[in-house]
């Protein structure tokens, strides 16, 4: 592809919206074309400016109650719940985390444009297809248990490492089981959690070969969040909304010492 064709793809490429073949073609071109690479720098500068300067307005606290009471007048079964308003209090904090994550992501994408980015995309693709396959093949679990003390020992002898296993039933993400997976060419533990009728796959594998990049993205309707704590890489994938998956990731982070 020549520069003109590449330029038309750059926006979609930096938005993470290209298929793998085109993405690779773009990255290959950028590696040897300083002019197009400079255009990408401009796009990154723009993204950084937009993401740091534009506020995401949050609903005034009174609005939630107004909406609830309007819905109740309409006959909707709506709770006068305190738990919801508590969630709303937590949300801005989460936004900060989210912003930090997107900044980290922007930096990551900005500085390691090339091989790592391809690997990141490959990792996301792989995780999503693992997740989809686990649902389709009805092969979500090899060990079905809501007890972390059953799930954790099950991995012993099957993996060369001992993954941290935490139940999050208390915060609405009950652990339902686990199985073995291959992620990024390594053996990984897949822990399965439930949120309503949806499954969350949490892949855990050692970080010693390569730390997982901090990623928050959506692919084919599935949300993916990944991070590392230095010893282990974590990657959560599910069809639940991005906000809820971020909550889940935050709970796991806090529960993992």
């Amino acid at each position, binding site marked *: 592809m020549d520069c003109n064709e590449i330029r038309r793809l750059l*926006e979609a490429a930096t938005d993470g919206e290209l298929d793998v073949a085109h993405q690779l073609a773009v990255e290959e071109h950028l590696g040897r074309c300083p002019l197009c690479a400079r255009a990408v720098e401009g796009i990154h500068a723009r993204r950084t*400016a937009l993401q740091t*300067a*534009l506020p995401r307005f*949050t609903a*005034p606290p009174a609005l939630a109650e107004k909406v609830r009471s309007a819905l109740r007048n309409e006959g*909707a079964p709506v709770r006068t719940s305190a738990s919801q308003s508590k969630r709303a209090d937590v949300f801005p904090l989460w936004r900060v985390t989210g912003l930090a994550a997107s900044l980290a992501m922007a930096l990551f994408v900005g500085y390691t444009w090339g091989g790592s980015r391809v690997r990141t995309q490959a990792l996301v693709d792989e995780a999503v297809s693992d997740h989809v396959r686990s649902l389709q093949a009805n092969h979500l679990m090899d060990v079905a248990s809501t007890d972390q003390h059953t799930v954790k020992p099950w991995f012993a002898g099957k993996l060369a490492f001992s993954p941290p296993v935490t139940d999050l039933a208390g915060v609405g993400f009950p652990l339902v089981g686990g199985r073995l997976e291959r992620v990024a060419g390594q053996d990984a533990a897949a822990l399965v959690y439930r949120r*309503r009728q949806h499954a969350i796959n949490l892949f855990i594998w050692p970080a010693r070969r390569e730390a997982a990049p901090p990623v928050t993205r959506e692919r084919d309707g599935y949300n993916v969040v990944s991070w590392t704590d230095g010893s282990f890489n974590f990657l959560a994938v599910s069809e639940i909304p991005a906000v809820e998956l971020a909550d889940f990731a935050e709970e796991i982070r806090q529960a993992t010492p």
Partner: protein
Amino acid sequence: MEASVPNEPPSFEQAMLPHLDAAYNLARWLLRHEQDAEDAVQEAFLRAYRAFGRFRGGDGRAWLLTIVRNVCFTQLRRNHPSVVREVFEDDLHGSTFDPGEVNALVWRETKAAQLQLALDKLAPEFREVIVLHEIEGLAYREIALVSDIPIGTVMSRLARARRKLQTELQALARKETTHGL
């Protein structure tokens, strides 16, 4: 269509209320007015509740945001008919858009207040795609759902919106320099 059937999750409340902030953010940017945005969100939630029987699961946020943006555009058309002119051009020339050159310097030196001002100056249809993509983090496919346009149009509209934003910023920067001198 009553959503109160037990053991039939998710309820309207579970499916839609978590997206209150997303709804408010979109309405606030489109209408550029706090009280108008609150009213629009409230109306959108009522409409969503009445139509919830037609919600087939899936992307609840996109489903709700469609209703929010429709309420907002109705309001804009009623109160500021001059502001809203349908953006036909990019639908007609969807495949021929040229993203142009991104001026890194302009974006590195821009101040937050200038950028917000520049975004406020865009036509609502362009502001909409910027808000959904850059602030709300929606993928092209989700924006296509929310705004009810083809993905190709999402791409071209986003490219044009970004370009217009840069033009506005450059104009604002020029103004500032002139006043500064």
